[in-house]
């Protein structure tokens, strides 16, 4: 069992480091390592590269089974179609809708879930176990069955065709509460008790002691929530109507049809959508990994 505490930051990268006591074995290992990582990279990058190449092909060349890696003729019309002003498929607009909805949804989840999780982890009250059991139980219900009921609820709230429908309802999900509650349970109680003895009230304990300690767990939950929201497909397709209000997955789905699939257009849309996301990841990956470490994953 891990004994790490939160002030010890993730400087450790050596858990898989080879023993390195023999120079020849060391070189062989290093070669093996690079061969392995190179092979994996090819497997992972090839489809992505194919996506990029396809996006610059003409629609017919995009479906040619000969599998050429060089677009010939080189055709940027898919990008022009998607990015042109007044386009019926404003990909950048969808991107910013997704970004805005994802960030707002994440913020909402962090606030309400941490409050609830703290109460469930640390306070004594009537119905605590029953409430927690109910919350956890809903994790297992397939999201599908909530579509129609939630559609009717959201419509009563006047949120159809607005980003509120993407931001608010999913914050009722149980995962974050479960996750944070597990984390709070593992925090040492002494700090909180000391704060209470010093005269702090429960709100001050929560905001000044618990939340700072929980920063890694909150970061983890933020990433998980944001990505879930970012990739959600079914619900946005259902509740958003106008082209200008769509999120990215919902928007990209309108590029497809049962009868014809314009591969180069879809791939161009995917490229436009993923490039900013990849850049964000590269910038944030260190924080993400350190955030997830020593979070509520200790069971």
């Amino acid at each position, binding site marked *: 069992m891990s004994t790490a505490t939160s002030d010890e930051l993730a400087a450790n990268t050596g858990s898989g480091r080879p023993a390195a006591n023999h120079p020849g074995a060391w070189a062989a290992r290093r070669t093996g390592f690079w061969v392995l990582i190179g092979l994996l990279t090819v497997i992972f990058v090839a489809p992505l590269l194919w996506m990029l190449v396809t996006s610059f092909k003409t629609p017919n060349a995009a479906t040619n*089974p000969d599998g050429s890696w060089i677009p010939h003729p080189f055709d940027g019309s898919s990008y022009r179609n998607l990015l042109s002003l007044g386009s*019926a498929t404003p990909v950048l607009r969808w991107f910013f809708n997704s970004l805005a909805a994802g960030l707002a949804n994440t913020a909402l989840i962090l606030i309400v879930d941490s409050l609830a999780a703290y109460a469930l982890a640390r306070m004594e009250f009537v119905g605590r176990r029953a409430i927690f059991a109910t919350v956890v139980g809903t994790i297992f219900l397939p999201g599908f069955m909530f579509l129609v009921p939630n559609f*009717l609820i959201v419509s*009563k709230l006047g949120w159809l065709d607005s980003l509120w429908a993407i931001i608010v309802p999913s914050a009722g999900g149980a995962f974050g509460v479960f996750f944070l509650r597990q984390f709070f349970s593992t925090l040492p109680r002494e700090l909180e008790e000391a704060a209470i003895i010093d005269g702090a009230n429960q709100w001050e304990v929560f905001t000044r002691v618990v939340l700072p300690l929980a920063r890694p767990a909150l970061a983890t939950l933020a990433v998980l929530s944001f990505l879930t929201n970012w990739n959600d497909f079914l619900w946005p397709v259902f509740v958003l109507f106008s082209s200008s209000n769509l999120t990215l997955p919902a928007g990209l*789905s309108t590029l497809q049809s049962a*009868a*014809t*699939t314009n591969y180069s257009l879809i791939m161009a849309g995917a490229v436009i959508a993923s490039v900013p996301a990849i850049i964000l990841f590269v910038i944030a990956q260190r924080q993400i990994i350190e955030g997830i470490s020593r979070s509520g994953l200790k069971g």
Partner: protein
Amino acid sequence: MNPLDTPLTRRGFLGTVGALGGALALAACGGKSTPPGTGGATGAAAGGASYSGPAVKLAFWNGWTGADGDFAKQMVDQFNKANPNVQVQMNVYQWADFFQKLPAAVQSGNGPDVSVMHIDDIPTQAAQQVIVPIDEIAKALNLSGSQFAPAVWNGGMYNDKRYGIPIDVHNLGLFYNQDLFDKAGISAPPTNESEYLDALDKLKSKGIQGSWVSPFQFTGGFMFQSLLWQFGGDLYNSDNTQATWDSDAGVKALQWMVDLVNKGYSPKNVGQDADYLALKNSKNAMNWQGIWQVNDVNKLTSPKIGLAPLPKIGSQGGVWGNSHQFVLPRNGSNDSNKQAAARYFIHWFTQHEAEWAQSAKVPAETSLQQSPEFTKLTDLKPFAQEVPDVHFPPAVAGIGDATGKLYDAIQAAVLGKSDPAGALHSSANTATGILSSNKKKYG
């Protein structure tokens, strides 16, 4: 070239005659609490021949993703420019999403003001009161059954009320790869079974599998239905209480498709869309494909794709087809101006039916199929020729639930998972059960 510069105004002012009677009943149909067609509020305008009310915005939803949608958008732009006081905002969804979204939106009072759907979706949506009767618009437009193929006209009806105004017919035709035909020495597209098999043999001798059979609805399901009718069968019995695709004709039709695979005229395991993509990449020579792909193949510089009527494999003509029809969703806003404007928009669109045909459709009205505006679209001629042989899906609520079982059976047989007779028989039994449970539900 802007195809919309010369609008057809043939019916331009005929509509006013029947309009007044229609407007009264029609304007009432929008209320959420008012059952459709029971009358109530007074109309603000005529049944659709014109609109002179205050400026309104209309939401127009359809499932025209891809090229159809681009074309429809051009027409909507044209309409908006010509009618500053009616601004139409078009939203496009995939058909599969469309039929989840539209009913939910209508039910919650957020539906669009005007919409489009296929013949076989109309009864289901009508039974669920997602769309309202529009007999009055048909009257205002002076439309009558004699102007259309009977199945197209009757397909817009449910329980003796009209819900759909037909704007096109889109049917299957034979798409063939001219380059491969030249290579194999085939001089003309085949018109019957022996010519078809002869062409396939010539192609085979050049190492080409000439007629790829798709195990999916697009296009294997459509091919099967065409063959079924050609062999004298039908999907359902006359009162649509029983699935009959397991008849001898059905077994023959499916066996014929499976034989194409078994004899090596088609590869095994054709993936989704692969039959058509292979045609465009000169791997496949013939594809029973929908008219909606005509503009797509015309964009190709090479190979050249030829178009012809479906060959008559069986004893009679038989071609799968469907029709887009305008419908009016039940509207929560209860705004009689919007309703009047929506009727006017439908009116305008049907007047421009021959232009809509340029998106690769056959006009729904038979007279327009002879009009110079349409006949100059020579690529579409083979499809128009077929219209007398076109069969449409039956107009019964929930029919898609039953026909879905047929597509499962076709897939199982074409992929070699079941024998054709067995697959058809068990799926027809299941479908008959679905028909009776749907009848109980929808009445």
